[in-house]
């Protein structure tokens, strides 16, 4: 073998490389190369994928990068020879990214010396340090640079890099570099500087260049490469190109043989929290759990808990995760000490250890959960604990980690934002010179998600017709389709955090994030999982913030906040409220689908809530699990198990497989799988392309069942049931953890509605409904509201005189700075006084007037008129402070409907009356019924209702059906719009106010109207 490619870019050289890491490896294998180096620009984003592909293909992965030096000094190609070299590579990349704008890098040359050990440096491409100096006709300077780099990296570790791409000046440059190498007795190496696999990929590379540089192709000029030679050449081609430099080719093999650096595999060593003297992490964890066991578990149940705890702690200890649990425990403890509402969610709620540590809220034994769903000996990936924090205080938790463990040991996971249909269409279109307005139209028309679908997009075809068949459009669509899945830019993972006992930069390069005081490792969550790194998800949940605010309001009223952790989930009044359908603002159960289910479902216990949360999901709906369950629950269908041994696992869900944990239990009870094996089966069921794996599991399942005296046909039928439902099942632990929050929110709504709705309104937008719907619902149960007031309103909603006072934050366009200005300057004596002392911008002042916040100064219309004069006076006070008669105008005051409309336009909320009152006359003329009265009518009766359309849903799985929620002052009703009606009354379904004529459908307590006409009003 004559050649190894040591300079190759994947598409992780953002907008400068075309092939995936896997494609590069595949090509190297095809060329029979024993190794391949990946050298993306200033990054190791693709290192884990590259490593995995190389391992699978049996070739050696060499980790490197093309580093950008500061001061326009050019590029340097670095390859990690040793593990120390790999660490230095990560550190150099981190330093290069430090203090730079997002997406750029510039390494000060001075820091190279401290981080050169274990690295092999190549002098770079045409943009390399030496080539630049030679191009600028400074051979002496190039010589000095080369000597310095040789000294820095070592003579055996610095190679002069030769490249030939049939560009003008290649030969002269290579000859000059050879001369330089001879003078300094430095070795040569030939590289391909691969940016794409084939010449046919060169146009795509040009488009990427234009996207990166934000120019059209016709204006790109020298930004584009002059030919299509930056492809992955065969060793034979390289041999022909470098025939006069055979040593340069041979050295590629020498270098490849020397490079032995490995990808740092996880799990990483986590930072240790402070432990009591003489105690290690596992022992401390055990002690904490046992202490909690004493206080949280009744003595009678203790043996089962102790046994479960011992089993969990054994597995945790084997997998060396004790410290991980302690880190999470410490974070949650910090949050609770600060009064930040938080709780764990997801599969971690299956863990008794997590429960006893106070991380998760659900007793897993009482809830019938399975630890192995979270962690087992058989599990091949690291566990992941997700913690929800009150959204407005999540940053405190994140900064606590940064401060406690140090910024060198703490970072967030990145996320790679990739091209989708619209972004690909727009960016490729701009590069190809399409007019922005035309691209806007195209992007508005397209409803495909993946860019790969663009050439066959029916939505684009509907918008543009035969125009799409022209060569230019076809060029655009094909080019945009090729961008599918390409990384576009780097983002920050929502909450994934990485901790490491060693400085992170020894293992993964770290970049500063756009957000202040944040940094991100260069691996996304998939890369971290591939490399087996542990992360911790620090997530924000607005409902927790709303609950927290509600509790504070209760505390203001009663003197102490309610102790939610002491609630016992058995308040009949709470369940009765839910069963009446009063669910707006209640976590996870307020959607129209949930509202339609509740009257039939009638939840009466915590277990019911858990089922309800898991049931209304796309998966169970699609897999037709919902109706069988409801039929069995209502007794209309018998509960039948395919085998008696399934009763224990499926009894709680009446024979329907709803929870992921039930897959584990069925596999255990029927086929003797261990819980860990059951979890592997569960994962295979949820993977679309695991058919080979599933077949293996099927055979084992049937064999195991037969060993337990279950006949093969029954076993086969059960396995088919697992296949049909298992892939769509939901984690019970996750549902149960959420059910806790659901219960808390319902409890607060039931017992402290005023404070609860105030809490909800403090943290909008959230939930399923717009704020005005939340307000209307609150008014229906007697909650009073006070409008925005310039003298009394705070930024956020407050509770005042047994009513909810809307905050200044609800006024359209009023930002935090404006609000602070108003709060500092008030009280105000007049409009003029306000303008003079704050100089609030006109749009914001107009919004305040329209919202009614300045009603204390006069009639709104008169104030609007006075506004212009006030600004003029504030700028240039007149000699005599008297308005002239000529500046007065006789204006009619706003009528009540106009006031209501103005208030809604300015705040999104109406306090005085329901929005539907704006169309009262039209509804009355049409003879509409009050929505609240519908349940008193008979099923199938023709009805006409009118109101505000508050939600419109057309789920892709609903076969063209449209679901509206219509609200009047008395309540909400679901409107079901069949496809043919939607096609005819599309504008009505999208109008703010609508008149719906149809037939009433009463179904087990649920009320729907099946629309025959939907007309805008």
């Amino acid at each position: 073998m004559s050649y190894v490619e040591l300079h190759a870019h994947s598409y992780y050289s953002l907008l400068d490389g075309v092939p995936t890491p896997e494609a590069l490896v595949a090509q190297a294998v095809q060329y029979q190369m024993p190794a391949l180096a990946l050298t993306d620009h200033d990054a190791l984003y693709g290192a884990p994928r590259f490593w995995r592909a190389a391992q699978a293909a049996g070739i050696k992965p060499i980790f490197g990068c093309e580093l950008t030096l500061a001061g326009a000094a050019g590029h340097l190609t670095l390859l990690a020879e040793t593990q120390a070299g790999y660490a230095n590579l990560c550190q150099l990349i981190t330093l290069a990214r430090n203090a730079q704008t997002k997406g750029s890098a510039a390494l000060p040359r001075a820091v190279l010396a401290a981080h050169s050990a274990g690295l092999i440096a190549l002098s770079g491409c045409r943009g390399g340090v030496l080539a630049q100096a030679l191009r600028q006709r400074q051979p002496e300077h190039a010589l000095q640079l080369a000597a310095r780099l040789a000294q820095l990296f070592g003579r055996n570790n610095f190679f002069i890099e030769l490249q030939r791409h049939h560009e003008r000046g290649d030969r002269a440059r290579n000859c000059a570099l050879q001369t330089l190498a001879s003078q300094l007795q430095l070795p040569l190496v030939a590289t391909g500087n691969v940016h794409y696999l084939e010449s046919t990929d060169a146009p795509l590379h040009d488009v990427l260049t234009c996207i990166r540089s934000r120019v059209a192709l016709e204006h790109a000029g020298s930004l584009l490469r002059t030919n299509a030679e930056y492809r992955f050449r065969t060793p034979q081609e390289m041999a022909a190109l470098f025939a006069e430099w055979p040593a340069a080719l041979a050295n590629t093999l020498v270098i490849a043989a020397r490079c032995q650096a490995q990808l740092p595999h996880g799990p990483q060593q986590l930072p240790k929290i402070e432990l009591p003297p003489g105690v290690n992490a596992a022992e401390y964890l055990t002690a904490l759990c046992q202490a909690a066991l004493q206080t949280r578990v009744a003595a009678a149940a203790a043996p089962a808990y102790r046994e479960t705890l011992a089993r969990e702690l054994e597995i945790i200890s084997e997998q060396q995760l004790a410290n991980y649990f302690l880190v999470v425990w410490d974070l949650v403890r910090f949050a609770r000490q600060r009064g930040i509402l938080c709780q764990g969610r997801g599969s971690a709620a299956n863990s008794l250890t997590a429960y006893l540590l106070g991380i998760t809220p659900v007793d897993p034994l009482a809830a019938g959960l399975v630890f192995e769903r979270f962690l087992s000996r058989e599990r091949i990936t690291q566990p992941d604990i997700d913690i929800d924090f009150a959204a407005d205080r999540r940053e405190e938790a994140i900064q606590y980690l940064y401060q406690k463990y140090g910024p060198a040991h703490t970072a967030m996971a990145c996320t790679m934002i990739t091209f989708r249909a619209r972004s690909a269409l727009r960016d490729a279109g701009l590069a190809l010179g399409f007019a922005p307005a035309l691209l806007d139209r195209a992007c508005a028309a397209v409803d495909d998600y993946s860019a790969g679908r663009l050439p066959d997009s029916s939505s684009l075809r509907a918008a543009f017709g035969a125009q799409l068949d022209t060569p230019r459009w076809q060029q655009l669509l094909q080019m945009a389709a090729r961008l599918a899945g390409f990384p576009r830019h780097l983002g920050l993972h929502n909450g994934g955090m990485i901790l490491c006992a060693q400085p992170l930069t020894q293992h993964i390069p770290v970049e500063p994030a756009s957000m202040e005081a944040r940094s991100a490792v260069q691996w996304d969550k998939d890369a971290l999982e591939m490399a087996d790194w542990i992360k911790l998800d620090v997530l924000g949940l607005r409902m927790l913030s709303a609950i927290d605010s509600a509790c504070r309001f209760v505390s203001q009223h009663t003197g102490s906040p309610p102790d939610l952790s002491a609630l016992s989930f058995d308040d009949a009044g709470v369940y009765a409220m839910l069963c009446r359908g009063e669910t707006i603002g209640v976590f996870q159960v307020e959607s129209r689908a949930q509202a339609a289910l509740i009257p039939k479902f009638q939840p009466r216990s915590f277990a019911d809530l858990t089922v309800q949360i898991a049931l209304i999901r796309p998966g169970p709906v699609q897999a037709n699990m919902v109706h069988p369950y409801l039929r069995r629950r209502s007794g209309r269908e018998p509960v039948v198990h395919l085998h008696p041994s399934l009763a224990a696992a499926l009894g709680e869900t009446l024979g329907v497989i709803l929870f992921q944990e039930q897959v584990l239990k069925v596999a255990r009870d029927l086929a003797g799988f261990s819980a860990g094996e059951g979890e592997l089966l569960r994962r295979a069921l949820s993977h679309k392309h695991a058919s080979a794996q599933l077949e293996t599991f099927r055979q084992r399942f049937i064999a195991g069942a037969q060993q337990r005296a279950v006949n093969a046909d029954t076993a086969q039928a059960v396995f088919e049931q697992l296949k049909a439902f298992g892939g769509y099942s939901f984690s019970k632990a996750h549902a149960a953890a959420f059910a806790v929050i659901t219960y808390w929110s319902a409890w607060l709504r039931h017992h402290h509605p005023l404070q609860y709705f105030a809490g909800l309104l403090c943290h909008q937008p959230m939930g399923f409904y717009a704020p005005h719907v939340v307000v209307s619902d609150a008014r229906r149960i007697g909650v009073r509201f006070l409008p925005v007031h310039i003298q009394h309103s705070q930024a956020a909603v407050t509770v005042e005189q047994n009513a909810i006072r809307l905050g200044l934050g609800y006024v359209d366009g009023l930002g935090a700075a404006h609000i602070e200005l108003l709060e500092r300057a008030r009280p105000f004596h007049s409009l003029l006084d306000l303008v003079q002392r704050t100089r609030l911008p006109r749009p914001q002042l107009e919004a305040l007037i329209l919202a009614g916040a300045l009603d204390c100064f006069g009639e709104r219309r008169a104030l609007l008129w006075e506004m212009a004069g006030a600004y003029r006076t504030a700028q240039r006070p007149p000699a005599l402070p008297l308005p002239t008669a000529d500046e007065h105008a006789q204006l009619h005051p706003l009528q009540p409907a106009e006031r209501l409309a103005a208030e809604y336009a300015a705040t999104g909320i109406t306090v005085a009356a329901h929005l539907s009152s704006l169309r009262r006359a039209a509804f009355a003329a049409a003879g509409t019924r009050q929505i609240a009265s519908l349940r008193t009518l008979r099923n199938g009766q023709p009805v006409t209702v009118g109101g505000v359309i508050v939600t419109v849903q057309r789920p892709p799985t609903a076969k063209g059906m449209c679901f509206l929620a219509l609200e009047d002052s008395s309540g909400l009703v679901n409107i079901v719009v069949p496809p043919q009606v939607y096609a005819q009354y599309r504008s009505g379904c999208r109008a703010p106010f609508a008149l719906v004529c149809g037939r009433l459908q009463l179904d087990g307590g649920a009320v729907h109207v099946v629309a025959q006409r939907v007309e805008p009003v």
Partner: protein
Amino acid sequence: MFYKTRTRILCLHYFNLAVGLERQRQPELAARPLVVVRIWDAQVLDACPLAAAAGVQPGAARRRVEQLCPEAALLPAAEDDYQQLHAALRTTLLHFAGAGRVEAAALGEFYVDVAGLTSAFGSETDLAEQLRAALAPVTALAPAIGIAENKFTAARAAAAHHAAGCASGALLVAGGSAAEFLAPQPLQALPNLPAEMLRRLQLFGLHTLGNFAALPAAAVATQFDAAGLCYHALARGRDARPLLPHTPPLILRCSHALPEGLPDRQALHNHAGRLAQRLAAALQAASVHTTALAVELQQDTGPAQQAGAAVKPPCADARRLQRMAQRLLEQFELTTAAGTLRLTAYPLRAWHLGASQPELLPERTARPSDNMHQTVRALRQRFGAPVMQLASTLGPPQPLPLQVRSAPDGSPQLVRLPKNNGTRTVQQVLEFWREQRSWWEQPVQREYYLVEAVGGRLLTLFHDARAGWFLDRRCEL
């Protein structure tokens, strides 16, 4: 002694001229709302009152029409016919009123200075009837006529006349009573009223011109500054705008007959290029820029094909129009049948409108030569070919075609230089490089050789994949 002549302006407006013509042509559509849509940009040119009441406005997209007024019949605009009628009407008015007294404002809308003409006709009503009689042979459509002391009031009078179902006569607004006449009309009657000003007036509860006119001028100035005062004056029936007898034509059109047997698309592009040059010359002669360009190809087989695009910024530059026309032609299906190619520039504006300081030095270029090339390109787009004819003499010399005998590997061995400069034997190839660019429009694939000929002369040759061997006469900056 000087007499102040009393100003009297007649507004003659064929409302919905396009719709009216189409209804005449297709009476079977009488019962349906009618919307005329321009083919090349699928935008509404004209909408009947029913469609307008449903929210369809000129300039709206076709899809919007389908949403707002699904029962409307959408007809392709026959712009030739509308322009011909408009021109004929203008000619008749010129004959009627005399040169210098007629302003063609928009399609089917004219202003005529009739001050002093009444004496010839007896009364303004008689004048209007005579005018109708003069126009009747031109078109059976009935115009609305309004006569008032200024253009705005006359236009509103015509609109009121039209709303009243005009069949004869005119709506006369006596001198001094413009304000009273305008008072009940909506604010939207004010021409090009800024949306923000309309919004604020409505916020103040003002919905009619009378409401607005009733405001003290000082108050209007305080609220809306000078622009508001102009509209305030209009609302009060005061319009000082003079009649403009010399306005740019609504469109300019050039067409060219295509022979049968058009070999390929390139030939069509060549025709389009020549047409674009003619059109640009016509624009420059009229001192106007075009804001849109439409291309129509009508071949003997198949339906007419149209495409168009806005020209931003407006220009009269031949190369830009040529490139636009060629891009638009890419959308067409081409056959070998004979036909007609037509370019239309419209609507037109005076060249100085919208002028701004151009950005001459673009960003993001690496080399001085690139800066120069891009600056030249920017100047060309802004100021047209005449400027660039001067600049092009500074451009690189054109490559010269050569005869070359090449070796099996493609490298040149023997070169016959042009212009009797003799034959040179290549002693050695000093350098080879390859260029592959402009794949998105006209791909360039060239292989360059820097050779040393016998005798020491250095030559740069290239082989173009389509055009053969050339001598490259550029020198590096």
